[in-house]
């Protein structure tokens, strides 16, 4: 890659209360396909909506499917716990696995398992936007988004793809997991951010950088959490976006 070439941000989709953007039924209707709606738990919907917002900013179909790459940070298990409740409705006190499957297990919707998978969102997005190129799905701590962004940049630099989608989303508003410890100390929050990255020398008509891309290696996510709440695996990318947005508006 020529030193004069740059990686630029050409599309952004974001849901975060700091920008007055929250997940609403209008946004869900606009950006989530009917077939995906029932399948997707709330946190996946956050990701799908943010991706939809970013995707409408560029004509992704300019690039062949195999030149489109995607790098995602998704939270741990996303399924709604309530879905398991019917399988226990026959129980009084004693749980005996000997008859659990036939009396309770059969009542669990087969889709529950699919909804539990961390890579549900990346799967739906790759299908909906015909992304056949390189991919990766991380699920780590708050800094997770940095790795996804770096992978996206590298895929373009190495010419493995011509357009890279980088996203992170999480919701810890109603949390059933051990992350509760984090939530007790910080405000619970949720959010999603999706970026579309292209090379500055792309021939795509209408190519326009909307943010300067840089990675702040010293980005302090704690400051962001203190101010806006904890967004789990989406925290770093949201904080970095907040940084870009602030600079742009100076």
């Amino acid at each position, binding site marked *: 890659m020529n*030193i004069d*070439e*740059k990686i630029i941000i050409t599309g952004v989709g974001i849901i975060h209360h700091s920008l007055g953007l929250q997940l609403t039924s209008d946004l869900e209707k606009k950006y989530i396909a009917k077939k995906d709606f029932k*399948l997707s738990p709330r946190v996946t919907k956050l990701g799908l909506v943010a991706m939809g917002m970013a995707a409408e900013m560029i004509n992704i179909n300019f690039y062949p499917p195999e030149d489109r790459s995607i790098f995602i940070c*998704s939270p*741990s298990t996303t399924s709604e*716990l*309530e879905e*398991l*409740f019917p399988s*226990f*409705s026959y*129980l*009084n*006190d004693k*749980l005996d*696995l*000997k008859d*659990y*499957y*036939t009396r309770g*297990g059969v009542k*669990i919707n*087969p889709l*529950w*398992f*699919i909804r*539990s998978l*961390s*890579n*549900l969102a*990346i*799967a*739906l997005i*790759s*299908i909906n936007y*015909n*992304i*056949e190129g*390189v*991919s*990766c*799905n*991380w*699920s*780590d701590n708050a800094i997770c988004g940095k*790795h996804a962004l770096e992978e996206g940049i*590298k895929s373009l*630099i*190495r010419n493995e793809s011509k357009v890279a989608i980088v996203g992170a989303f999480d919701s810890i508003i*109603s949390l*059933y*997991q*051990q992350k509760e410890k984090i939530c007790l100390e910080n405000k619970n929050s949720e959010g999603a951010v999706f970026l579309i990255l292209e090379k500055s020398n792309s021939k795509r008509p209408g190519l326009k950088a909307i943010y*300067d891309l*840089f*990675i*702040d290696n010293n980005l302090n996510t704690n400051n962001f959490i203190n101010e806006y709440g904890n967004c789990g695996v989406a925290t770093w990318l949201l904080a970095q976006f907040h940084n870009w947005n*602030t*600079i742009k508006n100076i």
Partner: protein
Amino acid sequence: MKNNSENKKINQDHQFNVNNANNANNSNNANRVVVTGMSIVSPIAIGVDEYFNALKNATSGITTVSNFDASSFPISVAGEIKNKKLIQKLNEKNIDVSLMNIDRKLVFLLLAFEELLTNNQINNESKIIDMIIGTGIEEFFIEDAKKIVTKEKTIEELKGRSPYIIRAIEDYPTFYLNQKIKLKGVALTNVSNCAASAQAIGIAYQRIKHGLCEQAIVGGVDSMLNPFGLLGFTRLGALSERGRCSPFDSKRDGTVLGEGAGLLLIESYESAIKRGAKIHSEIIAYTSSCDAYNLTHPDPSAQAVSWAIEQTLKKANLYPQDIDYINAHGTATPLNDITETLAIKKALGDHAYKIKISAIKSMIGHLIAAAGVAGVIATILSIKNNMAFPTINIKNVDADCDLDYVANGTQEHKINIALCNSFGFGGFNSILALKKFNMD
């Protein structure tokens, strides 16, 4: 807050550093990545030597589930690591057995790590070492779930509470291990399901190749052998009702779950030579791709998989006739095996009929997130020993699966270059190319 000119400089510096790394790696051995350590915890063996013997002898690790009562489940067989053997090994390595109560996967990973240390020293003082682990979804504890439902009557009461149905979130094994050894590099958890550990290896390979780290501990761990896991796969209809994983067989009817962990120590050629490490194999290319087709069904055109194989060959400057062997994803689901066969034929042409293809899931079951690393270790053992391990349980090969699947018995076969295929839920594909190590 940085100003605009500073920000632009950071952007340019970042790109310059990556360019430098690319340029520096363009000569001689500078971009070679080698495998210097391997460990495996699987239903047929704990330890690489035992794994080799078990694969060579066509050993099946599929048995009736005994770690919990699965007698009412329609499918109650799996590639299970028996608790008795597991506990014995944990005790031998001084690993706290009670950690099994938090996360079964965690003890698999710790055991694999201790096995890895048996023949390798991890010097995290002087080197930048990454750790990238592929994991599957958390273990759901059925007893905990039942407790919640019977004691906490309404959903509303549950909101905001932590019922601990999940005792350890997905990145917990990576987090725990990294806390223990405190590496200087990145510690990442890949959650691309059945392709997770193969992607983890691929990403680490790229990071070493491009000079971002010197060594990496990579691999994967998974266990879905708990009531909710077995129930989930059963309800999805992905498991063999016969309880037999028979890849490429005409009567195959689904996969069989397994569990386990595997780790590789991979590093730059220079690092390995400098420390006099034993080199098992060389990783020469990696490509991932997405089907972009369906959540649960592979794309019948096999386009994305064949593209990934072609890209892998291109990156390693290989021709189809250079490939001697493929360790197949081979799940034994009706659609996977046909699609994988088609992808191999599309990418390799007539040469596809000359290579040996093994599906080791027939012996160990489907290790989900750890399936990729179990396949890579088997591939390396095949390369080192010039041996194609068998695909067991084949009685009649499916008419649409017309390649050489090394049916039922190990075959001696000269292997210089091999591919290892891993595919995951949602249509995520990973292809790794490995080569017999040669100093030249």
